[in-house]
């Protein structure tokens, strides 16, 4: 069963090379990174747990590529933020070496402050948007289940979800400065 699924996915993987690379390059704005992730996809397919039954192999591969690209983009973002932060405020140069002044305690404090900001962002969400966000992203419910629990349409669930995401993004962006 799983053997057959792997075969289908491998065939699809090779056939979709162009379209996946294009998608990844658009998602990351970086052709080299797109290549890397296309390779990584192969590794994950070979070593990962595959679904027993697959109705949409194309969508499955897109989804895997999407998740890997998001992980990559998040790591890149964190790295950039940290680099900017460190070179600005917590390092000094000795000859050609960059020496970090930050202590572990400083870092712990910074991440604690950040948590407070994220908590504020969540607290400032309208109740329904927050509820939808928690159910969908933390508890992994489908929009259909959420619609049923809340007694609203899936369209409205999607609206609440979009509003929650927009709000969180704006809130966290506007407090980005508090990291430093």
């Amino acid at each position, binding site marked *: 069963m799983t053997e057959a699924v792997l075969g289908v996915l491998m065939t699809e993987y090779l056939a979709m090379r162009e379209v996946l690379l294009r998608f990844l390059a658009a998602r990351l704005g970086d052709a080299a990174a797109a290549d890397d992730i296309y390779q990584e996809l192969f590794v994950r397919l070979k070593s990962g747990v595959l679904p027993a039954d697959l109705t949409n192999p194309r969508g499955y591969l897109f989804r895997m590529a999407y998740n890997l690209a998001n992980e990559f983009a998040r790591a890149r973002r964190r790295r950039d933020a940290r680099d900017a932060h460190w070179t600005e405020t917590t390092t000094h140069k000795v000859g050609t070496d960059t020496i970090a002044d930050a202590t572990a305690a400083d870092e712990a404090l910074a991440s604690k402050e950040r948590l407070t900001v994220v*908590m504020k962002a969540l607290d400032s969400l309208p109740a329904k948007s927050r509820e939808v966000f928690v159910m969908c*992203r933390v*508890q992994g419910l489908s929009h259909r*289940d959420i619609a049923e629990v809340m*007694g609203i349409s899936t369209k409205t669930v999607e609206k609440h979800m979009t509003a929650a*995401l927009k709000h969180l993004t704006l809130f966290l962006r506007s407090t980005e400065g508090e990291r430093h």
Partner: protein
Amino acid sequence: MSIPATTAGETERLQTAAAWHARLETGADAWEAFTLWLEADPRNRTAFDAVDAAAREAVDLLSVNRELTVLAPPPAARRFSTRAFLGIGGIAAAVLLTIVARPDIFQPDEHEIVATVAGERRDVTLSDGSTVHLNTNTQVAVTMSRGTRNVRLEKGEALFEVARDPARPFHVAAGDRDVRVVGTAFNVLRHDGRITVTVERGIVDVTSDGARTNVRLGAGDQYAAREGTRAYQVAKIDPTIAAAWRDGRAVFIDATLSEVASDLSRYYGRPIVVRDADVAAMRFSGILKIEDQLTTVKRLEALLPIVVAENGDEVRLEREAPPSK
């Protein structure tokens, strides 16, 4: 709060990015359209990155601080349970109760009590199509009315597969906890003053008697509480473990032998006891097939330094005699 750094055009872009994120995360298959949107303007990608990073930060925080995911109870109008109304109190509750109770005058409730004896397992299909699997030594009282479906777990353990019916919430009461369900499969255990709720799929809300807030559980969540207290813990577990009894197996993960003895006792007429404190504190992880009492309990002898002794009243787990010199 003011967001001076973001222009109107940028806000629009973020809105679209957020909408894409919302759609894609719930399984939408629109990858070509998404690619085209990203390609249309490099700033779209940056906006999407920002949305994804914000969502991730929020999810990370909520995942490690589970108490933050506890939500206020939904407004009374959405709840049909008399239990919920009583919690709100006052005149409004009384009025609503009359309205809710009225249909029952015209359509009598169906009452049913189903029970198993020690060692017995049984599956029951309810009139709404839901299935209740009863484990050993279990008793449930079922009341089906027009507005709600209520099951009281008097004792023991049951696994529920609830048929979807948004108009009629499904409640399971166990001791002083109420579990509200939409359409889902989950396991409830009431034993030794403890209540454990494990969700296999879907979601349920657990409320303590008199509490104003509920605890929402999703797939893989296990809620554990002691009756008579408000405190509870929620942990992530493999839900198939909690349902293993349906295949006649008991699964233990790093359980003490006193917990193992207490849990296994549910299956038999004779209690399994541990008197020696050192033996009681031994840890056991493993899967035991539930067969006749001595066969099952003696499996532990092979795995731990203990011996099984018995008389007509009880089965004892004792320390293995030291090897003679």
